[in-house]
Structure formats: structure tokens, C-alpha cells
């Protein structure tokens, strides 16, 4: 436990070591205990300001970060921008200048453009946590998924996790991969070829990651499955014939889930399209850890806010 967390920002976990991921998960476990107390608040970040900058609609993640910040007694400032400010000619650079002038210690940001947090982190003095950027990364989701899986399965080394659905457009899938692989798990991707990066289907997938188009085969003997949300606009973009066919071929049904090892858990980052990528019986059944993910999410975000606070202080 002598390892220290020395990062200034949390933008993606693609270059994190196993030790760093485990450290954050262990801190998450300590934070989960705080959330179980009669008074769910500690003074650790008293006097600190956490700015929540969400340039893309997201209630769940924003609220999760807000609860996490408040459980550590931080002050929370919410900034939401819509397309309208861009139409007025306000660029991300303008927004960054405003954020810098506000002087928050930790900036939590959600943005529709892949890579936007790198742009911002390069230009503000505070710490930046990526709360989701385009298709690229959602590191806190990846960490909370790994944390949830570790709680259910124990050590993840040698475990095989299926990620099913629209991997191409999924920052969750990428962050899950970047968290599970260093922990020693392997990942099987399954979904329509049009929703899978071409390179990953053609032998250039990251180490430990494979693609199996047939979901039944992918699930056979797996230790867990993470179902991804299917955006309805993928059909309009010509990437799949119909939601009905998708549900039939790649929907997670109880029958399919039962191909995994007995008791193998089901995760979903939410919000779910029940009846499309996941059957209601699975989403709310005994295997589902989906509600647990929500609680764990607050704990993991507390852990990251706490761990980043000293670096943010130095920089501010």
C-alpha cells in the first residue's frame, strides 16, 4: 500500500498500470464504506471547488460526480453548454478560458468530441477528469465496471468478459478494455461488424481482445458480460437493418446469458433500451449488477476526486 497516485489528470486509463488501477479500486472500496454511513459526508475536500462541465446531455454521470464531490464536502459548480453557444461562435477554447478564470480545483468534463479533455487539460491549471469524450474514453465507467466485476468475481486475472453491442461508438467499451486488460482479464467483443472497428476485426485488436460475431458463441463459458447501449441513430446511419433484427441476433436474453458460467454477472452502463440490447428479465434479474454499478460509480468517482486533489492544489 505504499504506492502513491501521481497522476495530474484522469483522461483515459489506456496507459495505466495494474497497480494504479488496483490502488484506485481499493480507494473506491474505502469510499463505498463512507457511503454506507449514517452521515455520508467527510470533510476531505472542504474548501475545494469541483466544476462539472457537461457539454453533452448526461444526467446520470453528472449526478454521480455531484454526489461524489458532495460526499467529500467539495463545492460544486455546474456548467452546461448546449449547441446554442457554439452557434453563437463560442468555441471550446472560449469555454476553457472561462473555466480557467473560474479557478476550480478539479474539472470534470463531458464532451461529444473524442480527445476534447486533452485539449482542455493542456490549457487549464486544475486537474481534469474525463467524464466521457466522444467515442474515446469514459475512464470512471471503466474503473467502476472493473470494481464491480472484482467485487463479484474476485481477482480478474484469467477471467473472460464479453462486451456486446456497439463497440465502434462506445467510449465505455474502450475504457472497459483499458481497465480489464491490465488486470489480467481477456475481453471478447461481439456485435454487428458495422459497429466494430475494422482494425479490431482484422487482427489488429489490442492484446487480450478478440472479436466473435456470434454472441451465443462469445458468451459460452464467459465470466461476465457488459451489454452496451445501442443508439437508435445507428439504424438511420445505415449501420444496421433494424432494431428488431438487432434484438433478435445480438440482444442479451436470459437464454443467452445462461450460456455463461453459472452466476456470471451482467453489467450495462445505462441508460438501457430494454428489449433491444438487453431483455428486461436479464436487466432486472438475479445476474444483474446494474444497480450496483450506480452506487459503485459514486464511490469510484469519490476515490478519483480525492486522489487528484493534492495535484490540483499544487497547480491552482
Amino acid at each position, binding site marked *: 500500500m505504499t504506492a502513491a497516485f501521481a497522476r495530474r489528470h484522469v483522461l483515459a486509463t489506456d496507459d495505466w498500470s495494474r497497480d494504479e488501477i488496483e490502488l484506485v479500486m*481499493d480507494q473506491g472500496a474505502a469510499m463505498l*464504506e463512507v457511503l454506507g454511513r449514517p452521515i455520508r*459526508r467527510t470533510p476531505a475536500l472542504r474548501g475545494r471547488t469541483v466544476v462539472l462541465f457537461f457539454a453533452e446531455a448526461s444526467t446520470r454521470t453528472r449526478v454521480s460526480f455531484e454526489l461524489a464531490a458532495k460526499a467529500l464536502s467539495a463545492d460544486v459548480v455546474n456548467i452546461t453548454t448546449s449547441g446554442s453557444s457554439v452557434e453563437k461562435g463560442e468555441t471550446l477554447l472560449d469555454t476553457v478560458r472561462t473555466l480557467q478564470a473560474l479557478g476550480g480545483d478539479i474539472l470534470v468534463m463531458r464532451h461529444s468530441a473524442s480527445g476534447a479533455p486533452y485539449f482542455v487539460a493542456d490549457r487549464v491549471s486544475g486537474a481534469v477528469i474525463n467524464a466521457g469524450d466522444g467515442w474515446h474514453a469514459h475512464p470512471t465507467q471503466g474503473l467502476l465496471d472493473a470494481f464491480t466485476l472484482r467485487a463479484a468475481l474476485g481477482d480478474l486475472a484469467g477471467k473472460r468478459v464479453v462486451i456486446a453491442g456497439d463497440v465502434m461508438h462506445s467510449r465505455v467499451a474502450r475504457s472497459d478494455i483499458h481497465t480489464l486488460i491490465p488486470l489480467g482479464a481477456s475481453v471478447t467483443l461481439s456485435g454487428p461488424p458495422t459497429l466494430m472497428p475494422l482494425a479490431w476485426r482484422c487482427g489488429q485488436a489490442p492484446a487480450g481482445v478478440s472479436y466473435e460475431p456470434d454472441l451465443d458463441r462469445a458468451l459460452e463459458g464467459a465470466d461476465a458480460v457488459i451489454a452496451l447501449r445501442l443508439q437508435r441513430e445507428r439504424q438511420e446511419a445505415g449501420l444496421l437493418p433494424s432494431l428488431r433484427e438487432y434484438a433478435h441476433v445480438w440482444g442479451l436474453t436470459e437464454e443467452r446469458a445462461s450460456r455463461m458460467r453459472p452466476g456470471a454477472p451482467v453489467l450495462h452502463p445505462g441508460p438501457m433500451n430494454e428489449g433491444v440490447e438487453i431483455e428486461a428479465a436479464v436487466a432486472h434479474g438475479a445476474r444483474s449488477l446494474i444497480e450496483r454499478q450506480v452506487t459503485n460509480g459514486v464511490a469510484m468517482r469519490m476515490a478519483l476526486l480525492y486522489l487528484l486533489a*493534492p495535484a490540483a492544489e499544487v497547480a491552482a
Partner: protein
Amino acid sequence: MTTLLSSDDVRRAISRIAHEIVERDHDTSRIALVGIRSRGDMLAKRLREAIQKNEGILVPLGALDITLYRDDLTRVGNAPIVRTTEIGFPVDDRVVVLVDDVLFTGRTVRAAMDALVDFGRPRAIRLAVLVDRGHRELPIRADFVGKNIPTQPTDDVRVHLSEGDGRDEVELVRAAVPA
């Protein structure tokens, strides 16, 4: 480096404090022990065993990590590791004895009291320490003390416990005098 407490001294101090705790609050059913991590929790466990031997009763035991309540979080380079707090019993109306290895500035105890009251409203909070080395910065004193030891503020008091360090011993390391 001088030995302040030998292994036998440690054993006797724990035994004595166990007696004192019970003498102070005759109703043993109300007593609970909460050790402050990372050595106070080991001492609390030993105290509980001693009380059980003497009184035949197993008092509730908890462990408290005070990291999130520290007043110097912004002054440290990296965030200190938070260890799990385990208080598996209601603290309301209990006499909670906080247990720590060394009482020095009192800031740790202040943080521990803040943390503890987030779990409920104890009837009383008492403090048991193996060593009181003086130099308080807050108005805090211990109810039960293994040994009072005068020190210089720059001295280092090192507590070794067999659970974590292989042996029981308390040492005093004098700060090197600047030339």
C-alpha cells in the same frame, strides 16, 4: 536510539489500561473500542482480548481511518491512502474508547472524533494511548496512558507491534542535532 518500552512493558501497559477502562465505566455492556489505523486498531484488538480475559465479555471492536478527516490534506504531495473504516455496531449511547499508539499534537484524535460522530452520537468518547509524548497543539488529553514520555518535538517515537512489525517495542529516535 533508546528503548522506551520493552515487549513486557507493552504487555503490562495494555493489561493495565484494560483494567482502567472497565473500572472507569462499570457497565461493560456499553463499552466499545475503536482503534485508529494503522496501529491503534491492533492495540484495540489486544485491549478487547484483555477485557475478555478479565471480564468474560467481548466488547464491540471497530477500526477507524481518519485520512478523510485530516486537516493537512492540502499540504501533502500525494493523497495518503485511505484504508477502510470498519465500525459494524451502532455507536449511539456507547462509551467509545478511541485507541491509538502515540498521542502527540492531538490532531489525529481531533480527526478521529470528527469521524466517529458521523456514525452516531456516543454517550462519551474516551481516549487510550500506549504513549503520550506531549507537545499538544489542541486541547486534548488521554484518559488512559500506557506511559508518559517527555520528548523533543523533533524526536521520533517508533511503535513496533508484533502484528505488523514482528516485535513489540517502543523506541525513541533523537533527531540529529544540526552541526
